[in-house]
């Protein structure tokens, strides 16, 4: 355990500067897939009859959501190989931005000023982190 942890620590210390932005791009893709997954999971959770594991296994939209989550997790792992966890993990919050856009398009959810403000702040925060990753 200690070996892998220190190897990971050494890895993130050794990132060449030119490559340090690529992981952010990977996490960006990961958030789009994650948002699609969440919309499917939300649909599934809404008509989840039994909260047990069997009920969840029989819930098609929920399972499709998990599959997309699987793919996005692989992308996240590839990103984490070369990037810092403390930098990349908050970028996942971009998922909220896509979810809000998707809910607007698919479920015709209302978009109110609070949500707009929240989305703008998340985008701003991710931009700040992206700048931090460049240095």
């Amino acid at each position, binding site marked *: *355990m200690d070996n*892998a*942890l220190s*190897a*990971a*620590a050494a*890895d*993130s*210390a050794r990132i060449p500067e030119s490559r340090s932005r690529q992981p952010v791009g990977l996490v960006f893709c990961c958030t789009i897939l994650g948002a699609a997954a969440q919309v499917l*999971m939300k649909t599934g*959770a809404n008509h*989840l009859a039994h*909260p047990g594991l069997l009920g*969840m296994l029989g819930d098609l939209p*929920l399972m499709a959501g*998990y599959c997309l*989550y699987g793919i996005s*997790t*692989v992308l*996240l*792992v*590839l990103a*984490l*190989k070369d990037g*810092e*966890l*403390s*930098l990349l*993990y*908050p970028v996942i*919050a971009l998922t*909220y931005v896509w979810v*809000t856009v998707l809910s607007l398009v698919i479920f015709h959810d209302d*978009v*109110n*000023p*609070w*949500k*707009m*403000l*929240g*989305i*703008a*702040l*998340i*985008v*701003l*925060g*991710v931009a*700040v*982190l992206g*700048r*931090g990753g460049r*240095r």
Partner: protein
Amino acid sequence: MRTPIANMLLVLLAAFVGSFGAVFLKSGAAELRKGWLNLVFSEDPPFFNWRLASGVSLYLLSSYFFVLGIRPPGELSVLYPMVSLGYIFTLLWSRIFFHEPLTRVKIAGLFIIVAGVFFVGLGSK
């Protein structure tokens, strides 16, 4: 607030478990040296990438708690900000386990994002 404490605890637990999932994914990712096969297999005993497997398991467990937590009558406006506590946990674990530097830029970015998630939650019915 009509959100039951049980829903809040479930979502907090989901955030906590998920932040450890991220830690295991990061340590498992360090093994990906030779290619895609390392997503499952490892060169060293026990010859399978148990760190990644643990990370994925913790993620699944986390989303199970999350799905249970956000069910009605849980209100997203109360529960979403709790999810973003997971980002703060993860920042701490990154510092403790991987010795990543906590720069001002990271802390500023993180708090802007947490505020953003808070407002998205506030706007959600």
